[in-house]
């Protein structure tokens, strides 16, 4: 049965912050290979849902199943270990570290020097090489993997954050407003990255306010309104205008 179970399945998930009910019982299935867009107006519960999926916040109630098995994410690191990586728009990278250092943050490669078995030194050369390979795989051209990330454009930073997720071999990648601060060219780069992830068979959950971007890459769309999921359907036949209407009214018609 495990093969047909959704990659990630939420049942009756609630989240309260004190008296405020951000999520009022959300059921959501994310199937392997989906590019699922989570849309909704401000305050609809998108951020709360993302934080629960990412392991940053525990849900107040309900159940999460990963490939059919109940799971509990204790921390973002825990979710990462289980194959779920989240890319936050602002918090994704450490600006003063280099591209390589960011990609390997939290999973540094080390080597030992012969004769000094206790001493683990960073294997900088191997990390630089593998970082270059990862970026090439995403078709991102960066001249020098030692460049500090603070010198990169917004889209390139997303690419670095994505490379880190791939480095963890994440099966599901959650992207929170990946195109919000980007120009046209940069947005195209990020959308291409999402298509490439989809082509590799990875699962993507995309949170976005940009309906055109959503329609360009998503395979499915879930609309949140007032802490509930009101619509969950394939992207076929949905264009940006209709999607915006769905977000505002909460109805498909």
């Amino acid at each position, binding site marked *: 049965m495990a093969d047909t179970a959704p990659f990630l399945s939420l049942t009756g998930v609630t989240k309260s912050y004190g008296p405020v009910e951000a999520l009022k019982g959300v059921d959501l299935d994310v199937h392997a290979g989906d590019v699922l867009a989570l849309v909704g107006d401000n305050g609809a519960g998108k951020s709360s849902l993302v934080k629960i999926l990412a392991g940053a916040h525990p849900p107040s109630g309900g159940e999460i199943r990963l490939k059919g098995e109940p799971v509990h994410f204790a921390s*973002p690191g825990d979710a*990462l270990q289980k194959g779920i990586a989240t890319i936050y728009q602002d918090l994704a990278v450490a600006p*003063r570290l280099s591209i390589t250092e960011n990609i390997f943050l939290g999973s540094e490669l*080390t080597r030992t020097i012969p004769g000094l078995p206790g001493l683990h030194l960073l294997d900088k050369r191997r990390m630089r090489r593998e970082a270059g390979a990862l970026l090439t795989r995403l078709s991102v051209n960066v001249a020098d993997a030692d460049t500090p990330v603070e010198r990169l454009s917004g889209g390139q930073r997303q690419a670095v954050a994505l490379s880190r997720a791939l480095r963890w071999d994440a099966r599901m990648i959650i992207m929170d407003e990946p195109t919000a601060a980007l120009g046209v060219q940069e947005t195209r780069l990020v959308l291409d990255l999402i298509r490439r992830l989809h082509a590799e068979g990875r699962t993507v959950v995309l949170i976005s306010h940009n309906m055109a971007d959503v329609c360009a890459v998503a395979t499915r769309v879930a609309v949140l309104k007032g802490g509930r999921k009101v619509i969950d359907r394939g992207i076929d036949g949905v264009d940006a205008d209709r999607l915006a209407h769905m977000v505002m009214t909460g109805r498909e018609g």
Partner: protein
Amino acid sequence: MSTDLSQTNDVSLRSLRAALFDSAAGQLLLAFASLIVLVAGFGIASPNFLQTDNLIGILQATAVNGVLAVASTYVIITGGIDLSVGTLMTFCAVIAGVFLTYWGYPIGVGVAAALICGALCGATSGFLIAKMEVPPFIATLGMMMLLKGLSLVISGTKPIYFNDTPDFPVIAQDSLIGYLVPSLPIPNAVLILFVVAVAASVVLRSTVLGRYIFALGSNEEAVRLSGVDTDFWKIVIYAVSGAICGIAGLLIASRLNSAQPALGQGYELDAIAAVVIGGTSLSGGRGTVLGTIIGSFIISVLTNGLRILSVAQEWQTVVTGVIIILAVYADIMRRRKT
């Protein structure tokens, strides 16, 4: 023509300024050049300055301050600050005194006790900062006062002398290099500073711990979201820094052949000054141990040189203050560029 020339001049000046102030290497070079200028200047101004005894005095003073500054470097690169390094140094010296003089343990035990004590106190600061979310400035200010008080209480406000362990003062005062090269009687304390600096530099540049020191100072949230246990690593970093303060405590106790419980406050400011002068950013994420060592030498050469020129103590403090402000300003200028 003349305007053209002045413009070219202006451009090359600007690029020179950019090269010096904007890059880490430039900052190091600038600090090193300042040190050379200072040494040369004082050497010309006073014949006493370049006397061997005086130079060795400078080295001795730099050994203690330099080790403390190395301890501060780690913490400052994480974007934190440690005001307790000076009184922690004293507290570790007092603990060594308690083990060696009060309880009569062998030297090795006293040394280990001082280092462990430093690591535990540092870990306590780290715990306050990471787990209880007390701002580093306040947490370490509290530790500074607490440790100062404890040193005075434990010692009964009197110095603890190491008269029963004649080998203890030898640690810092003897000269291993002097045995090998008699014309170079460089005290062991300087050798220890050198070893501490090299080890600290390797850890900072080539280990996972060092990587997280930089990463925490660059974007702590990103580190946490990368699955790194940031609280744990912060406590480790403050503990390592504390253990290095323990080394400084042993050096100063060995040099004075006593643990002076009233000493220590004020050392943290010299340490922070040395770190900043050496090009480490107070906003975190950037810095080198080499810069810190150069910064320590600048501070002790200044202190020593001004004293030799009979500049009043009050004015020495004024000069140090001005230099710290200039160094921080250089850091801000550099940050604005990127």
